[in-house]
């Protein structure tokens, strides 16, 4: 299953080219694989290893450290409820229990129709909007149980397909560095004093 497609391999090569060392591109490339398939497959990791010039084990080593990379299929929508302190103070644990009861799954589980995976997560930097959650990393603020129910209805009916892309797609605008504007990746070896420093030297300090 699922090496990167030809089009994605081109994107991958462009990303790799921005870094002084190819391995630095690993996390963005794992995201690319997850965007393509909804999760990170073994074949994609092998392909990434080839592109970056490391072993597949090294790719797995990095991949397995990070919470966002799923190494088995998850729901189309990942619903992450923050239960950390600011949200806990304003009812996040109750919201999580409501979600578990409504969806019929425990945190970490996926609904039988494969639509929703529920997670109990750490602070997502929206603490003043507690309790809050993310659907595929899109925010919902000050979520009451009724709001949660409406969200689930909307996900089921397809009302949010434009706003919330399927799991794996993060930002939908990619950085593009035009070749005629690129300064280029700065190799860690053989570096020289940058031109704008060399051309504007600091005056020699007065010796006291």
């Amino acid at each position: 299953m699922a090496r990167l497609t030809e089009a994605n391999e081109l994107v991958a090569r462009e990303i790799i080219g921005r870094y002084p060392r190819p391995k630095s591109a690993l996390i963005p490339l794992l995201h690319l694989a997850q965007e393509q398939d909804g999760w990170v497959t073994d074949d994609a990791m092998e392909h990434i290893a080839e592109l970056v010039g490391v072993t597949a084990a090294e790719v797995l080593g990095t991949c397995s450290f990070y919470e966002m990379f799923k190494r088995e299929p998850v729901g189309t929508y990942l619903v992450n409820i923050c239960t950390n302190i600011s949200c806990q103070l304003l009812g996040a644990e109750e919201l999580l229990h409501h979600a578990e009861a409504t969806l019929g799954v425990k945190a970490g589980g996926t609904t039988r129709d494969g639509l929703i995976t529920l997670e109990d997560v750490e602070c997502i930097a929206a603490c003043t909007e507690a309790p809050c959650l993310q659907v595929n990393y899109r925010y919902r603020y000050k979520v009451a149980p009724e709001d949660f129910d409406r969200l689930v209805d909307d996900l089921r009916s397809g009302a949010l397909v434009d706003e919330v892309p399927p799991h794996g797609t993060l930002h939908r605008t990619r950085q593009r560095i035009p070749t005629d504007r690129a300064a280029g990746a700065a190799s860690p070896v053989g570096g020289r004093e940058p031109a704008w420093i060399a051309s504007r030297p600091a005056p020699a300090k007065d010796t006291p």
Partner: protein
Amino acid sequence: MTVTDAPRIITSRFDVADGFTIDRYEATGGYTALRRVLSMRPDEVAAEVKAASLLGRGGAGFPAGVKWGFCPPGVWPRYLVVNGDESEPGTYKDRLLMEKDPHQLIEGVLIACYAIGCAQAFLYVRGEMALAQERIAQALNEAYARGYVGRGILGSDFSVDVVLHWGAGAYIVGEETALIESLEGNRGMPRLKPPFFPAAKGLYLQPTVVNNVETLANLPWIVGHGGAAFAALGAETSRGTRLFAVSGHVKRPGVYEVEFGVTTFRDLLYSPLYGGGIRGGRALKAFIPGGASAPWFFEEHVDLPLEAGAVGKAGSMLGSGAVVVMDETTDVVKAALRLVRFFARESCGKCTPCREGTGWLEKILQRIDSGLGRPSDLDLLLDICDNISPSITWPPKQTTICPLGPSAVSPIASAVLRFRDEFEARIGAPAPVTVAVHGVAYNSKPPVEEPVGA
């Protein structure tokens, strides 16, 4: 109240609907600071930032200008890594700066690269922040197209690529050496300092400056108005303005830009401009002054200024500007448990005291919370804390590679020492504490109430 009329330095475009676009940015003075620095010498720009006394806004609060000076002379290339990994519980400001005014940050990044002599910059945005990534990608594309970033910036000999990088979910990656490991494509585990101080041996073991998003967002204003104008605001070591996220049991939770050093916690919690008071008119029980890693403060601390030195002397820190307010209804056992669970989940596992200690702290607190606690449990908790961070002082001593382990001690020592009765009620028996705890805030006593009419 000391609510001041300090200008809004970094949130001036927050209320403008299209403040994130390059057209709005240019129309409101954007990229003029970049033009200005190109007519200055890099060392002059660095001197201006030093004069501003800009403290890092990422947590440790180190002066930015001084840090830049730590790069060893003559070692090239240097890199800039922007820390946009914001994930300290209670912290909410960098995401807003990236979403609402990405060009301000990019201009700050360019100014820093120019002053330090960085050959490349990496803007590391937290993985979970899809919109922030989108806005920065868009903003960088626009900025490249108009000649502000890349080769020969605005026709000068200043050339630098700014690369958007994005993470994948791991709190520890916010720690600067873990951030660098992650940017090298590795598991995000911190490196030992020394020798791996980023300024000396950072990204690819080259000199690297790691700065927080909010720190860099201040640079366009500092260049535009001068370091002295920035330093004229605030007090003591804490100059300029700063963002504070006030969350929890206040009437008006929000992210507020306030004058640093002089505004007080009372202002933040009670001023109608900011927190607006405790919800339902209830009493304050405790508040966290600077993120989950900070020792808690109480009623007797509300008149302290938001000044790094004063807060440090009182036994805590302003950390990442996260003020979490707990009213009298708060279950402190559950609050402490939740915070410790966070550290246990996020420990990278590299050091034994942190990996094992945080796990045991969580299990013991879980047992107390579920009514199965033992009279020896409070001492056991503090004994583990003492192993992770000997003598439970502030600032904490470290037996670990990074400060994450010792951070788990803060909520436990705070809650157990101040609210022992609540833990004992849960345990159902007296639970003595014999382990010596030295941090000042942990030993703080509630103010004695003056009898009315005395």
